[in-house]
């Protein structure tokens, strides 16, 4: 039994560290915020954090299979532009619009998956190219920023539940329960981990690697489109911004690393990535709380990111002999 505990602790070390880091940073943030921690401060912080957390979840699914999705931000931008066009009007059209956005997101993920699996192209190159395609589609929908979104849906997602709890956290919890946990516990989710650990070994063991990879990419696109929908609810408009897409792609990778997910695949969890994303966002907010001059904020954020990933992924402290470095 004690050995079991040690194993479980080791398996979840990255997630626990990310959780601890987030709690520590958020405590500093909350105690130093000029207005104190009230429901509005928490909601604003949660909305920003949850947006990145959803993108980070999307990135995690692909990274677990030892791939990388550099189009995840562009899928979000595409979903944002689409949502600002079709998630309007009567409750029926709004519902259909939401379904349409999710469908397009899943489609984008499926395209990535099919090209990677059947085209046998490297994920990094594939998603760079498909990212350009998705961005083009977003630009076709929104040549200039604008559009609208159903106000009641937006308020429901970005407001507060029972007057205190940010609704966005409920959305995040819902995604974990509906998407991540079933995936993690299914045999196909196990297969995704196996593919990430060693694709050859997984293939030799008869693991359905194609289905596992395909599902990972599909769900990644789906989650990215949820993020796009949520972004629309925050901004009440759509914008085909390449800078936005790239930023979220890069931040999602940072969040994944901070969350203890191995970029080599096969280890880590979306829960860790969520806390990595929340921690990353809190770092940005801390700079604001401590009145760092806006001019210096990008530099400090960069340095903190650099320090965090150095600590998070330096394998030096864990190697048993020098040859292990070159695995």
């Amino acid at each position, binding site marked *: 039994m004690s050995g079991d505990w040690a194993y479980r602790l080791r398996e979840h070390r990255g997630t626990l560290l990310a959780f601890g880091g987030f709690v520590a940073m958020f405590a500093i943030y909350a105690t130093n915020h000029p207005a104190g921690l009230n429901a509005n401060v928490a909601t604003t912080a949660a909305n920003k954090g949850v947006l990145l957390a959803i993108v980070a979840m999307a990135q995690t699914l692909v990274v677990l299979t030892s791939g990388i999705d550099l189009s995840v931000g562009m899928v979000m931008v595409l979903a944002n532009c689409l949502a600002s066009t079709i998630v309007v009007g009567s409750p029926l059209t709004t519902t259909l619009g939401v379904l349409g956005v999710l469908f397009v997101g899943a489609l984008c993920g499926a395209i990535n998956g099919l090209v990677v699996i059947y085209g046998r192209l490297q994920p990094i190159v594939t998603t760079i190219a498909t990212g350009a395609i998705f961005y083009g589609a977003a630009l076709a929908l929104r040549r200039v920023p604008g559009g609208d979104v159903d106000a009641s849906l937006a308020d429901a997602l970005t407001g507060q539940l029972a007057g205190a709890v940010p609704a966005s956290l409920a959305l995040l919890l819902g995604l974990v329960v509906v998407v991540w946990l079933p995936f993690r516990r299914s045999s196909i989710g196990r297969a995704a981990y196996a593919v990430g650990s060693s694709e050859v070994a997984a293939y030799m063991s008869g693991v359905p690697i194609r289905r596992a990879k395909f599902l990972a990419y599909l769900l990644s696109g789906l989650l990215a489109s949820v993020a796009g929908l949520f972004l629309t609810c925050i901004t009440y408009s759509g914008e085909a911004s390449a800078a936005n897409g790239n930023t979220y792609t890069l931040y999602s990778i940072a969040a994944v*690393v901070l969350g203890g997910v191995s970029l080599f695949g096969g280890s880590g969890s979306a829960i860790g990535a969520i806390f990595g994303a929340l921690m990353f966002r809190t770092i940005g907010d801390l700079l604001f709380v401590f009145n760092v001059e806006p001019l210096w904020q990008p530099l400090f954020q960069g340095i903190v990111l650099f320090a965090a990933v150095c600590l998070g992924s330096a394998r030096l402290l864990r190697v048993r002999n020098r040859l292990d470095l*070159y695995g």
Partner: protein
Amino acid sequence: MAEAPARTRDAGDAFGNGFGRVRRQIDPAIAWAFGCIALVLIVGSFYSKSFLSPEYLLQQLKVASFLGVIATGMMIVILLGQIDLSVPWVVAVGGMMATAATGWGTLGGIMAIPVGIGCGVALGLVNGVGVAFLRIPSMVVTLAVNAIAQGLMVVHTGGFSPQDASSPAMRFLATGDTLLGIPNALVVWGVVGVAAVFLLTRTTFGRTVYAIGNRERAAYLSGARTRMVVMSAFAISGGLSAFGGVLLAGYASKAAQAMGDPYLLPAIAAVVLGGTSILGGRGSYLGTVAGVILITLLQSILSVMQMEEFGRHVTYGVVIIAMLLIYGRGRKHSE
């Protein structure tokens, strides 16, 4: 794919003729890339008569030179099996520090280009130390360095309001012509290219780069100084990215913050379309040259066709995937 050259080599040696020699030296990927260049030119000539004129082609090669210099550094890093995502802001650092140095007076004007490149090498060294000695995945450490470079430049422009006009030397390199009418930028790319080919094929450094890309552990066990090589490769990549920024600042006669953004993905695409494996260890500089020209012509033809911006992005992505599906596919498990 990896076994194919060995077989043709045997055939060529057995028959003792030059044909087998030539055949084994031409990577099918490079042949495809040059074929695609020809195709783009032919399609382009339907839209505009001037597409095949020497002036237009020289102009395209001049524009391609900037991407070519940047892609050279990217290629060396990709040959290691790593990637350099810090290109956007290292390009901007190169351009902005060079123009800032121009504002320091006569000495600054002379030192502008070395200062720009030096800053790039410094950032590249940070990347290299992170990857080689701290063993951080290159994708992460270069992202972080990119963020730091961005932060530095925001502080630099906002806090010190430096000069952003480029020096005469930078403009000369980027926009001038030699006596024969060949653009200076193209000559610069040629020099960088020849140096890269020499470095990759005729030096221990180059051999070690390919060895590390194939299997780093084996290279280390063979006594290669893998960590120094990896670190130097990233320093070279940083320096060349910054040099690209210096040239771009000379071409536009000023440096701007987001000037490097449109160069990261084309640089990776050019290297990969030229047949260099993204997993490292395989690829030749000729392929990268083909990839750079192909990307530049593709961007050019899409604007000549007066396609709307969204269409350009979509076509760009589709063409890259289509070309890679033709010749850049990985192996099956069963092979």
